[in-house]
């Protein structure tokens, strides 16, 4: 294990995660107005109708896959009697389907972005960079799955990548595991770390607003006029006296 490994698999991950967490906090505090999907359906919906659901359902399954693959230790699945081969057949099967769905969806979305005039005009530099990193991450990830299917990958990521990933969160990083994981996984992990670092500053923040509260709230929201004094937050020392409002 050399210095580079420490930089790549200890320092970079922590920096990236720190930016991810602090960045979201900061963005939410200072830019609620910019926190949106920036939907482009007004311009075009024929391609979006296929591309967006394919991509989104795909990536949500991929996300679940990652939570399982990275979060659940191998010993646990084996303890419930799931054999190595069975697990991989399942993971790779589901992963490949979801992954290709995502990729096809993303392909349609990118094609749409480039060829539909108004959508292209509404694409910012920020969007372009985000699409680049997102596409890279998905491509590297999917190529790992494909290599896994072909069977010549050689490394079981559940012995290397997953424990390394968990070790980051135990604050007991084990860079040597990742150093042994092979270039495919390394590239995927690095581009994912880059994606996390830019995440709070792109339109991807909409993921954290997934409107699950919709299921529990009443249909109609009533609200009083703004509680704060005018446009600004109430300055310290100027809070109103409690008691009956109105």
């Amino acid at each position: 294990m050399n210095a580079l490994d420490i930089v790549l698999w200890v320092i970079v991950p922590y920096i990236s995660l720190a930016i991810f967490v602090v960045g979201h906090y900061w963005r939410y505090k200072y830019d609620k107005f910019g926190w949106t999907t920036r939907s482009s359906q007004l311009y075009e919906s024929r391609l979006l109708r296929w591309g967006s659901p394919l991509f989104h359902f795909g990536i949500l399954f991929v996300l679940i896959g990652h939570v399982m693959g990275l979060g659940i230790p191998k010993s646990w699945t084996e303890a419930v009697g799931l054999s190595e081969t069975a697990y991989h057949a399942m993971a790779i099967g589901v992963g490949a389907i979801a992954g290709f769905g995502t990729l096809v969806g993303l392909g349609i979305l990118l094609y749409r972005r480039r060829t539909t005039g108004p959508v292209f005009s509404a694409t910012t530099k920020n969007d372009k960079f985000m699409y680049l990193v997102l596409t890279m991450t998905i491509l590297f990830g999917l190529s790992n799955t494909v290599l896994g299917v072909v069977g010549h990958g050689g490394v079981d990521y559940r012995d290397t990548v997953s424990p390394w990933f968990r070790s980051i969160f135990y604050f007991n990083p084990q860079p040597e595991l990742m150093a042994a994981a092979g270039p495919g996984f390394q590239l995927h992990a690095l581009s994912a770390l880059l994606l996390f670092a830019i995440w709070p500053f792109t339109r991807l923040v909409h993921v954290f607003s997934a409107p699950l509260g919709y299921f529990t709230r009443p249909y109609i929201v009533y609200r009083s006029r703004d509680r704060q004094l005018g446009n600004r937050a109430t300055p310290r020392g100027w809070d109103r006296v409690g008691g009956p409002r109105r």
Partner: protein
Amino acid sequence: MRVMAQMGMVMNLDKCIGCHTCSVTCKQAWTNRSGVEYVWFNNVETRPGQGYPRTYEDQEKWRGGWQLGRNGRLSLRTGSRLKRLLTIFSSPVQPSINDYYEPWTYDYETLTNAPVQEHTPVARPRSLLTNKPMNIKWSANWDDNLGGAPELTQADPVLQKISAEIKEKFEQTYMFYLPRICEHCINPSCAASCPSGAIYKREEDGIVLVDQDRCRGWRQCVTGCPYKKVYFNHRTGKAEKCTFCFPRVEVGIPTVCSETCVGRLRYIGIILYDADRVLEAASTPNDQDLYMAQRSIILDPHDPEVVRAAERAGISRDWIDSAQRSPIYSLITKFEVALPLHPEYRTMPMVWYIPPLSPVVDALTETGHDGEDAGNIFGAIESLRIPIEYLAELFAAGDTSLVTGVLKKLGAMRAYMRDLNLGRPADESIATAVGMTGQDIQDMHRLLAIAKYDERYVIPAIHAEQGPEREEFDTGCSLDYEDGPGMGGWGPFGETSGGSTPIAVENFHMLSARQTTDTLSAPPTKAQRVNLLNWDGKGAPEGLFPSRGNDDARHGPDGGGDGPGSPSVTEPKP
């Protein structure tokens, strides 16, 4: 009984001349920014016609509003919450920009740049979305004054509900204007379909607003509103809608569209309603009973019981007072001449309309009859089936007797008042024929024909002690908000980011920029626009016209004149 106050509007369609002043001034005040070029919070449609966006009334297609399930429960026409979240990645039905229209500007520069040539140079239209040359094929009022009829008119969803043989003759006999704003519904389906809960109804006055900081751009409300009065700002990625000019009504002055209406046909006031019975009323099984159901939740502000309940609910005395003097309450409940637009959408709309009688009178006069004779008018209302059926589809879920009743009252008023004006004895039988007294008719005539400013607009201002709760607070320093004064620019992520700018600050920047700008359209910053919000109807609004000579005083950065700094003074106007 849970009493709530609701701001509402009534428009007297007989007086609308279709001048679009309301639309233009509204646009100047609220939607002259890029991203909402195609948006008209107020639009005026010629009926019969397709409307804006095209054929929005066809709910089989656009799926707006509420529907009654087989179990008698009210649900959104777009589907259950689960279904709508599962299809959120691409809304199954949402109007595209072509259903509104592709906004454009003209390449004016060629007019001055073009080399010397034989023919006059032409300013070509350019799309404001792509900046490419385009052909103009549609706009917000393309079929204005029956333009393109009968082909275009045939697509009118309301017309299609009426039988085929009638359709043929329709456009020769009848035409009127329908100005539309957001209905500020009592049971708003836009709010119900917002996954983030960003659209809310204000407890105090029932105005429905979109919280720009909580909207996440899921664009479900656009589909949810049956009147298609929520719009998607394609540059900020947020929904926007008519605000009932809350910064104006909060200080007691009417909305911009009403203030500037040439026909003086708009009435603003509040009503009190029983919030506990809204759901029950909106779930009335028969569409045609919805009008009465909505009427039934409107409370009588003179009833001591209601007054007590209102006071218990924290509604202040002067608001109750305003409710008692409310012109819209009179038009809806006392004279019963105002009707809701499309009650069958079950959103309990609160912008009501007095259906137009003029076309009936015109038709009569054309045939050589006296168009203002009571007998003739009554007869014509009975026999002119076409317009009646059309109006009934708009205002009464197809119940023609309701519309006939209203038109008869309007006809009776004309006939009765004509006798008075000509110095003839009043014919009380005209009044009794429509179930009114002569005094009622005179009162109604006063309200409809000669009511002055302070009778047409009875808008209670917000209390001094509630002042700080106004959305725009005028005793604090308006430059003192997050990120300090003079920012005017964009947040770190481009034009859509950063906090929202107080209207006063935006005004300040707009005024200074307006005087130095070289461009007319698509201003490079959101600050450069004329804003009519502070205009009280006196003189010309700041920045709307180029300054005359050097009278800097008028264009001083403090906006001159009295802005919201002098609240709650509504001077009576002619």
